[in-house]
């Protein structure tokens, strides 16, 4: 269902990962700077591997040997960026409507989808606010809504709940879970939160300096003591 085998020379080390997962949601964890965001960027098509293969479901996004490199917009991924990357010149509404509009949804459906996503996250009241004039957590919610409203066939989320208050975090986590289940969407979620990993993850991969240091089924991996990285949550 998901196969990422890529290498790329970074400034401080070489990224060389092999991620394979047959079912559900992949959670990427690991130290700061270990390469998690870079992996997501490669899957999205924003960063280009030096070599390797990226396959999602039956679709090959990238294959250096076959010379395949599907353009970003044809990969149909939904990406919640670590720094949100909300369009600063647009309102909250237009940010969330951007994806449906670009993918040619009829106006009625655009509005419906935007409303649905913004209401779910309690942001419908702020739909006319400029995206640059929001609090940190509000921005993150808009980024999530924007991603989900585009109805992607693969979800990429880079610490999507890090700026949310506890209540919203819990609620949003269950929203995401439901989206993934309803849409039968594969998803890759980067997080530093054990709660996210436990709630959302089917497979967990732990990265360290550009390599996968450990991996396994979420429930097994996340038992105390299975890996030093996981241990750090319990110290």
């Amino acid at each position: 269902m998901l196969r990422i085998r890529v290498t790329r020379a970074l400034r401080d080390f070489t990224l060389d990962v092999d991620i394979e997962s047959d079912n559900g949601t992949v959670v990427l964890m690991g130290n700061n700077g270990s390469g998690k965001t870079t992996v997501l960027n490669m899957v999205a098509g924003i960063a280009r591997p030096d070599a390797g293969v990226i396959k999602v479901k039956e679709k090959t996004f990238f294959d250096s040997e076959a010379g395949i490199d599907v353009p970003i917009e044809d990969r149909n991924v939904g990406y919640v960026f670590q720094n949100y990357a909300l369009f600063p010149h647009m309102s909250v509404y237009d940010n969330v409507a951007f994806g449906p509009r670009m993918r040619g949804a009829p106006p009625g459906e655009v509005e419906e989808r935007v409303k649905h996503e913004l209401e779910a996250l309690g942001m419908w009241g702020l739909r006319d606010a400029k995206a640059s004039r929001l609090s940190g957590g509000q921005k993150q919610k808009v980024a999530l809504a924007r991603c989900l409203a585009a109805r992607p066939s693969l979800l990429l989320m880079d610490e999507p709940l890090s700026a949310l208050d506890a209540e919203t975090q819990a609620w949003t986590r269950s929203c995401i879970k439901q989206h993934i289940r309803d849409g039968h969407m594969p998803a890759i979620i980067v997080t530093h939160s054990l709660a996210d990993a436990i709630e959302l993850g089917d497979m967990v991969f732990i990265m360290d300096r550009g390599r996968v240091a450990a991996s396994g089924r979420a429930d097994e991996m996340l038992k105390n003591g299975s890996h030093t990285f996981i241990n750090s949550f319990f110290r």
Partner: protein
Amino acid sequence: MRRTKDGKGIQALAILFFLLVVAFIVLPLASLFIKMEWGGLQGYLSAPLVVDALRLSFLTSAVSTLIVVITGTPVAYVNARFEYPAKDAIDTMIDLPVVIPPAVAGLALLMAFGRRGVLGQHLNALGIDLAFTTMAVIMAQVFVSSPFFIRQARTSFEDVDRAYEHAARTLGASPLKTFMYVTVPIAMNGLVSGAILSWARALGEFGATIMFAGNFEGRTQTMPLAIYTAMQGDIDASILLSIILVAISFIVIVAVKMLTRRGLIIAQD
């Protein structure tokens, strides 16, 4: 600006410079008004020569600015975002029309597009004559004014964070749509500002126009040429024409700025 110890001196200096610059620019403009003999104004404003020249000036400068913006935008974007061999050289070529004295620019255009010109002789064989037509006025304006837009647009595009473009692409926008709906609006502040300067330069263009397009009333005699021609007989007339040109330009530029601010420019925060 809140006040601090060194802040006060610096603030004073900044204000001083500000006033100096404004005074230095406003004083000569004001002198035109002060020293003018206003007698003929009424008559000039309706004289066919002046009306023709004004119409031609605003028409040609609008068209040339449109051409500069439409064709210059891709150039600016390519130079902002892509690397290619000899990019510095090509980027600098685009600036060079600014350095050439305008009459020489007009001569260069004649040598390129005139009837005996490097390219013009072939166009002529096809029955196309560019020199000494209204088209030539526009070409001269495009030649001298394009660097001002392209340079500013390039900087503005460079300053647009690519993260926004990437986000747009993941949301299904093609490169073109990304450019139109994300890159351009974010760079709009600079694009408008470059377009205004480029338009102003086209409007004030004289030397290249008179050489390449000639000084034909109604066809190539723009306001600057009319001003120059009037100078032959009557300095006051030419100053009056200049004042008309400056006053109308002032109104146009202020209007563009106000409209832009309302609709387009993103708020800083």
